[in-house]
């Protein structure tokens, strides 16, 4: 059998220019003064201590997608205040304020290329009601997965989520089933599904699509689990050891394939796409 040499050009760590984000004056990891342009060039990873700053979908999309290839889908899908939720604030008001801030629900999805490979990409936005899985999020995810499955295009997910959205009640819970059924379609079609878990990924999001990737990749230090530590302490009075539910903990317990610095993510995804092509 011939061994085919595949010389690989170095894959850029960002697909395009990342937007500037709001940052604290000092790194929460090591306390060093933050240099915005340096951080931006390093995918918002502290060059001193490796602290990974949380990113919204507006940063994840240009980080992963080749410049100019992003085509967002179903941006107009909107949430409803179906439970007439009023406490501590009217749900409809919360949603409208976030939309006015320029966020567009907890999941944004679309197509792009990554180092030339066509992919479907979905990124959670923790800034939108804690990145909670909602009807809109579920709908965008399921539609994209169905299209990826039928077109045979690999699916890449970046999660950051507190779980299912309380304000949408049991219909938010039902999104776990809706989305997992769609993940099943990807698997049945033999379409690669790579899941990137970032800080934090919890509850219904961890208990559905985020841990069902063919390959699960976690960011260093990301908190990942089902029940949050506050609720575990309330329920069981247990003292939780340091590092409990960290990405490294999940690696040790067999839940993720690797803990990978964000500066290596894009080249790795490109390599994985090639290996599964």
């Amino acid at each position, binding site marked *: 059998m011939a061994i085919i040499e595949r010389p690989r050009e170095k894959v850029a760590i960002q697909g395009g220019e990342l937007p500037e984000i709001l940052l604290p004056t000092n790194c929460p990891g090591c306390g060093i003064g933050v240099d915005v342009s340096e951080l931006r060039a390093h995918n918002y990873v502290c060059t001193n201590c490796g602290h990974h700053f949380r990113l919204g979908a507006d940063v994840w999309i240009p980080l992963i997608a080749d410049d100019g290839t992003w085509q967002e889908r*179903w941006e*107009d*899908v*909107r949430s*409803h205040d*179906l*439970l007439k*939720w*009023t*406490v*501590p604030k009217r749900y409809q008001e919360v949603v409208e304020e976030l939309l006015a801030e320029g966020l567009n629900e907890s999941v944004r999805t679309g197509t792009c290329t990554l180092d030339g490979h066509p992919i479907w990409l979905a990124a959670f936005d923790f800034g939108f009601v804690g990145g909670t899985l909602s*009807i809109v999020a*579920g*709908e965008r995810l*399921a539609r994209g997965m169905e299209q990826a499955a039928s077109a045979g295009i690999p699916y890449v997910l970046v999660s950051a989520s*507190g779980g*299912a*959205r*309380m304000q*949408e*009640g*049991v*219909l*938010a*819970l*039902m*999104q*776990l*089933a*809706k989305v*997992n*059924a*769609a*993940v*099943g379609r990807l*698997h049945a079609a033999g379409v690669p599904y790579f899941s990137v878990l970032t800080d934090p990924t919890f*509850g*219904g999001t*961890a*208990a*559905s*699509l*985020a*841990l*069902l990737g063919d390959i699960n990749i976690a960011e260093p230090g990301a908190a*990942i*689990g*089902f*029940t949050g530590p*506050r*609720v*575990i302490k*309330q329920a*069981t009075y*247990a003292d*939780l050891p340091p590092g*409990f539910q960290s990405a490294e903990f999940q690696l040790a*317990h*067999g*839940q993720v394939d690797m803990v990978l610095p964000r500066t290596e993510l894009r080249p790795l995804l490109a390599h994985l796409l090639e290996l599964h092509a």
Partner: protein
Amino acid sequence: MSVWEIVELARHPDRPYSLDYIRRLAPDFIELHGDRLSADDPALVGGIGTWHGRTTVFLGHQKGRTLKERVARNWGMMHPEGYRKALRLARHAAKFGFPIVSLIDTPGAYPGAGAEERGIAAAIATAIMEWFEIRVPIVAAVIGEGGSGGALGMGVADRVIMLENSIYSVASPEAAASIVWRDNTRKVEAAEQLQLTSREIIGMGVVEEVVSEPPGSASADYDAAATALDEALYRHMQPLLAQPADELLQHRYDRFRYIDSLISAEPHFGPKVD
């Protein structure tokens, strides 16, 4: 009745639990144990018995009445092993063409360190996904508490019904209060906001039927409650038994894919298809 009174009824220790129903539905029920990996989860009972003349796999969250029983059953809160046991028995059902009846009665999956260490999130995720591949009819019933992902992990079915005084919720009222206000004592307010009673749930299109309970609730008359549940479960199961498996799975997919159609059909929700 107030919402909180319904929550208390759904959780009442005199309420019939899964085994009370299963033994009435299938008096020859044989309990089977173990996930074939490492453990047996006593918070989930499973086994086989004859139901309307047909071998059927029964699964159900099981709570306990005395303190000792409650501890032994872990208050009906499953560990990862429980979901793996459920899938193992579902595969047993699929191998022999037995229909599955799943009874839901849990505050949620166990919120403890051990469950996290052994992968509770992935266990639930895998269960939810794999129920869509089980090629035999499944009917589920919420008989008490349907709490969160712990309940949904046993609740992917072709038909889902609820007993009148049961609840189904994205999170328990205590957990929701803890998440929204960081204060789990505001559970009554949370319960009212969550719309978790059977009447509210059927209004959202999430279950097919609400089964009336005997006067004074299911706690007052186990036999009458079991008869009503039996009748409703079988009425939903019967048409499924004749359905080809591919069609069954497609309908199961569509049931959950469009479960929020009452909401998403509204014009400003956005285009259904391109």
